[in-house]
């Protein structure tokens, strides 16, 4: 499993353009927001956390369809499925998701404080948003794995994956943004939504790979 993780990360890093495009997309989305709502710094600071979350959500969805499709194209997906007698396929999918998250989503989390500055956010808000993104984005990847696995046999599943996955990510978005606001606005709590967010991530760490593995198996036979 460790070897698989290293292989996945290395493969992801080799096609470095993918990571860059994800971060660039994130940057572009955030850069467009002021043009849409106007350069009012107070307003930007108020919606900043939400915009960062939506940008990260979209950027995460962008790369999801490649999660299994690259492996399917070169045939290694069949090998992974055939090896499921020795390694649990669910575990393999989980490792693949983690590797995908490390390569293409972690850069987004790293870039988010910088983008938070663009949105004129307070340091506390930036810190909270980055922390919630760190905890919450794995859930998006794990839910997305189900969508990617379900649509793996489709030639152009990218848009379909986004359509399928977006409604399911509503809870992640809600708790991520509420926790980010909770850190700045006084009456709103921070810890409660943050812990619920962590719970959602852990929950999907079980459900996502299970469902994705089942979908991959059925797509193979």
């Amino acid at each position, binding site marked *: 499993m460790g070897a698989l993780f290293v292989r996945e990360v290395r493969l992801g890093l080799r096609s470095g353009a993918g990571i860059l495009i994800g971060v660039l997309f994130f940057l572009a989305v955030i850069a467009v927001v002021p043009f849409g709502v106007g350069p009012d710094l107070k307003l930007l600071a108020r919606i900043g956390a939400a915009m960062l979350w939506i940008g990260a959500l979209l950027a995460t969805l962008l790369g999801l369809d490649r999660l299994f499709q690259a492996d399917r194209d070169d045939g290694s997906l069949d090998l992974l499925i055939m090896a499921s007698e020795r390694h649990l396929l669910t575990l393999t999918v989980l490792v693949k998701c983690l590797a995908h998250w490390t390569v293409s989503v972690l850069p987004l989390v790293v870039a988010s404080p910088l983008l938070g500055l663009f949105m004129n956010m307070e340091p506390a808000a930036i810190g909270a948003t980055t922390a919630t993104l760190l905890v919450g984005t794995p859930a998006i990847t794990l839910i997305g794995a189900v969508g990617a696995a379900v649509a793996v046999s*489709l030639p152009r599943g990218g848009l379909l994956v986004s359509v399928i996955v977006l409604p399911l990510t509503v*809870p992640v978005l809600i708790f991520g943004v509420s926790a980010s606001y909770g850190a700045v606005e006084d009456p709103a709590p921070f810890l409660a939504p943050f812990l*619920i967010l962590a719970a959602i991530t852990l929950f999907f760490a079980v459900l996502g790979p299970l469902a994705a593995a089942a*979908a991959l198996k059925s797509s193979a036979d």
Partner: protein
Amino acid sequence: MSETVSKTGRWIDWANPTRFMSFAGVILPWLAGLTLIVLAGGLWMSMQAPDDYQQGATVKIMFIHVPFAWLSMMCYTIMTIAALGTLVWRHPLADVSAKAAAPIGAVFTALALITGSLWGKPMWGTWWVWDARLTSVFVLFLMYLGIIALTRAMDDPAKSARATAILTLVGFINIPIIKFSVDWWNTLHQPASVFRMGGSTIDGSLLRPLLVMAIGFTLLFFTLHLMAMRNEIWRRRVVAMRRVAARNADRGPVQ
């Protein structure tokens, strides 16, 4: 496929599409007739129902809005059971049922949203409130659309069946989480003025037409669902026969 069918024992009566077709052929006229009678009665009772002292004539929208909302949830539950049928028992009709139910459920969900919106405009003064209930139903509608998109995107029914079943199940497990999160989000943001309709008790003069309408629309749903299932089986037969025809045509010149 035939081995799995024989294993399921008494389910075999329903697993055989031909037997299902004859069953549907017998029951459909009765079901359709009953639907017409109950719906007509329900409509008449709705027209006769007195206006609510608070909501006036708009209370009549309730008689269709509530059944639509109820059906939008029942349809998803049926699709979930069908998904289990596809994945666990490999029931050949389960996938037909799920595929046929999805568009009908989507239409009922859309109607629940539209009628709710038309009810909200005179009552709340706005077409749309990001109220917890409305938002949850809206997310449910999006999920229906995603499932429909997935079923229509794949040509091979066997493959799309399992993929759709998995997606439906994941969605069903997600519904409580979405409901919980939307409730949380809603209490956090405190919408300006939301008319609470859950708390008020409904008078019998309004409850009776509502009940009849709910039964009528449920019957309508089952009628449409059975017909759509029958269409889907026919469609698959046509595809299978076209394939046979193409094979025969290929073989033709050789003979």
